[in-house]
């Protein structure tokens, strides 16, 4: 493994520009200045039926300047790394902050305290994917998708690989100087089947919507069992064409893998973002039903439900050394024994509930204002073997791989659709159903959770496309889950006509 030092990330020129930005901000009169240089690389390959369907090879660089002037924020992004352009960006951020404060009765921003830190952090990886030849990357996808070729009804064989590399240099006028290198990798495959009537069904591995992603190098993708699962998922997609529709009734459901990860993401991760709670997302992503007066009082889930926010999990997609306010990554309780006990907070929002930031503030790139984002929101494993959960289910559905998701603006009413459902009758899987959906309300749903599978099935899943904010920002987050059972859930939407 090549070791990357702070000097690899931050050049002499970067340091000079940062110094100029911080000094110019202070000279103008800002009480606090942040400068964040981000150098990003992204490679994204989408192979369809052996041909290149989509490809991104992007390289970008820029500096984001955030200033606090008389208690109000201003931000300017600038791609031009020349001294005069950086000074212009600082000037713009300053003018914007002055304008922000012109509104009468606007409370001033108070940041939770933070000791200055000088540090370097690098995510763990063995092989930098940007040092690997294209042939080697493409071969993984060719090999896997070729396995689907002879399966009947399959008309689309798709493979996806994505790599990111973020080099960040973050400095503040308080004396913080942090360099970080974060390398992330992931891949996935999918098979789409069609019958004579034109009906289409899809199966993917290991997760839908381009696969699974970790903070890791090319070694993660090399180890993914794409090839050995390719034929199986293709056959399942074909079988789904002939399978019965998901019934419309109330029954138990067992969620696993990336579907349970998404359930945690939508119905727990988002509503505990403190900026949503304070209305900062009211105009776009929505607010939350989990208001501060419920902290410590709301029985969010059953006693076995324990959820944490943990930006320190090695290899997880939502991990980092420091957030984009310079706060060290940490682990904190969100749901403890079923009770709502914690939020995701920033330096700006935490003081409003008499807390300090728990390091969840990040920006998509240098051109965006950092906002509260999930880190890794993990449903901790229970004690029951998965086999026992299935055996003790009288009638239910085991659901995997998301096909659609929808939840209201307060994160109460949700509906999810999955690629496949396995029908369980008297403790035995008896067949598959197509187009399975389930719906419910968050509190009732998590309180109906009566079993969580043990650590044998627990693992991290990566969600690379979490959207929030205006302008829209995409963030990479993670979720640790095993399997969990929920009682008496409404499944199916019937034949909508």
């Amino acid at each position, binding site marked *: 493994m090549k070791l990357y030092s702070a000097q690899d990330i931050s050049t002499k020129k970067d340091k000079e520009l940062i110094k100029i930005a911080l000094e110019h901000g202070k000279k103008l009169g800002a009480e606090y200045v942040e400068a964040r240089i981000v150098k990003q690389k992204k490679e994204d390959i989408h192979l369809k039926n052996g041909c290149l369907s989509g490809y991104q090879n992007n390289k970008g660089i820029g500096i984001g300047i955030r200033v606090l002037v008389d208690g109000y924020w201003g931000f300017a992004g600038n791609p031009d790394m020349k001294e005069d352009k950086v000074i212009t960006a600082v000037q713009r951020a300053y003018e914007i902050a002055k304008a922000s404060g012109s509104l009468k009765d606007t409370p001033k921003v108070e940041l939770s305290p933070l000791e200055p830190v000088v540090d370097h952090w690098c995510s763990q990886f063995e092989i930098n994917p940007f040092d690997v030849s294209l042939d080697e990357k493409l071969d993984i996808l060719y090999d896997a998708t070729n396995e689907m070729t002879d399966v009947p009804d399959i008309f689309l064989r798709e493979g996806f690989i994505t790599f990111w590399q973020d080099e960040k240099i973050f400095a503040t006028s308080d004396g913080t100087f942090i360099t970080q290198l974060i390398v992330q990798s992931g891949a996935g495959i999918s098979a789409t089947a069609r019958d004579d009537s034109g009906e289409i069904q899809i199966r993917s591995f290991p997760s839908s919507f381009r696969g699974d992603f970790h903070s890791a190098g090319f070694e993660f993708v090399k180890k993914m069992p794409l090839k050995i699962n390719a034929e199986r998922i293709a056959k399942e997609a074909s079988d789904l064409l002939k399978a019965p529709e998901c019934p419309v009734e109330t029954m138990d459901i067992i969620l696993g893998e990336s579907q349970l990860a998404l359930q945690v993401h939508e119905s727990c991760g988002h509503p505990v973002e403190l900026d949503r709670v304070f209305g900062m997302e009211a105009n776009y992503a929505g607010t939350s039903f989990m208001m501060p007066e419920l902290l410590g009082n709301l029985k969010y889930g059953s006693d076995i439900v324990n959820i944490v926010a943990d930006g320190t999990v090695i290899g997880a997609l939502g991990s980092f050394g420091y957030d984009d306010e310079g706060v060290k990554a940490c682990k904190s309780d969100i749901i403890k024994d079923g009770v709502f006990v914690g939020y995701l907070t920033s330096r700006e929002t935490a003081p409003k509930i008499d807390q300090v930031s728990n390091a969840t503030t990040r920006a998509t790139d240098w051109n965006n204002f950092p906002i509260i984002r999930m880190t890794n929101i993990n449903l901790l494993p229970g004690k029951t073997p998965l086999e026992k959960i299935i055996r003790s289910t009288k009638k239910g559905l085991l659901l995997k791989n998301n096909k659609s998701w929808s939840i209201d603006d307060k994160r109460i009413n949700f509906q999810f659709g999955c690629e496949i459902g396995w029908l369980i009758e008297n403790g035995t899987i008896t067949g598959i159903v197509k187009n399975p959906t389930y719906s419910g309300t968050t509190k009732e749903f998590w309180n109906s959770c009566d079993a969580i599978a043990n650590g044998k099935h627990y693992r991290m899943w990566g969600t690379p496309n979490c959207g929030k904010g205006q302008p829209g920002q995409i963030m990479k987050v993670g979720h640790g889950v095993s399997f969990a059972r929920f009682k008496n859930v409404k499944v199916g*939407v019937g034949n909508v006509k």
Partner: protein
Amino acid sequence: MLNKKKAFQILEQAIKKSSYKNVEVFLFGGKKHLTRFAENTIHQNIIQKNYVLTVKITDGKRVGIAKCNIFDGKNLAYVVEEAEKLMKHIRDDDMVVAPKSPEKGDYEENKDNYHKKTSLVTPAERAETVMEIVSMCKPKKMVAAGTVVSGDSMFAYMNSKKRFAYDKRTFGDFTITLTNETGGTSSESSSNNNFYEIDFIGLTKKALKRAEMNQNPIELKPGKYTVLLEEMAVTTLLDFLAIMGFGGLQYYEKRSFMKLGEKITGDNITVVDNPYNKLCFGLPFDFEGSNRRKITLIEKGVAKNVVHDHRTAKVMNTKTTGHALSPGSSLGPFPINLEMNAGKKSTSSILKSIDKGILITRFFYSNIVDRNKTTITGMTRDGTFLIENGKITKPILNMRFNENVLEALKRVDLISKERKVFLGYGGIESTIVPKLLIRNFNFTGVSKL
């Protein structure tokens, strides 16, 4: 903003970096100023600036693509090299098309899209606008959240066959969500290439009126109801139809619901993709440098056309319609200036005609449930009201719908003569829609704790 001359220089320099014959380069970007307010205060106030260059090189049946945002000689050479590297490694693809020479008859340029004053809106002006809005809301005990946006953008295309196209525009955008003391919400939005033509005050007044009505909602049981969808809600139906089937790639792969020549909606529905509507003049050329054409997608209920780029046109033996997206996108050609026909009835007369129904301001977090049936789900948001005997009588709790879009468009009884324009990314995307009165709209749940 990068002017035509500067854009030409960068693109020309990039093309010269490659030793290959068939090179295409695309440059887009600009500045976006966004003042975001919530809880009646400005909480995020920013300027974003960026330009991205895409290089696409083709050689026979192979293509290579790469992007960067730095345009010095070293980085231009790097991005060209990356594109060439990809081209050497991938397998042959029948859909690859070399760049084309300039077409006869150039694209229609619209100089009205660029308003110098809009490009110069200051942070202080945007803050003053927010101040005025908040001063209207506070006395009524309303909490305002929203965005005031101004900016400019440019798009330029060049290829090694001497095709060069350039477009610039400004944009202004306003969105507002109000929350009353009981937690009821309302929202309004408007976009215009000219920031100063946005009626911030009028829209805030409308949102205030709607928020005042949205207090103490009653619960309505899920089931089938007549609905009057306001324009924002109609955009959801149209946008999902586009995703599920208006593109040539989906049609080629037989994943589209479009069966050309067959009746798929009611007679009263016509949908076109029109970049040349004066209400929202779109980008006149696409990301392959082709002139964009007005395309009728559904005409009086009959599926007429899908949109194409050079790739899908080649394999389907037809001509491009000028709907290519950014190189490297796997979505294929896509309509970005959708327009649904207006009806003959005024909104007030449609409302009067409803004995019992639901008024829906907008949908939220919608998603595809079953692509085979064009079924989507989502929630209502920011004002859902009961209509009784031709009048809006009570607010109701937000409801979840599961509905087959094409079937719903067979049950449209009335269409408003008023239409509303929504602008999207960089001011080049747009949707123009009327209000729709739809029978038996399917609701399956209610949002309540």
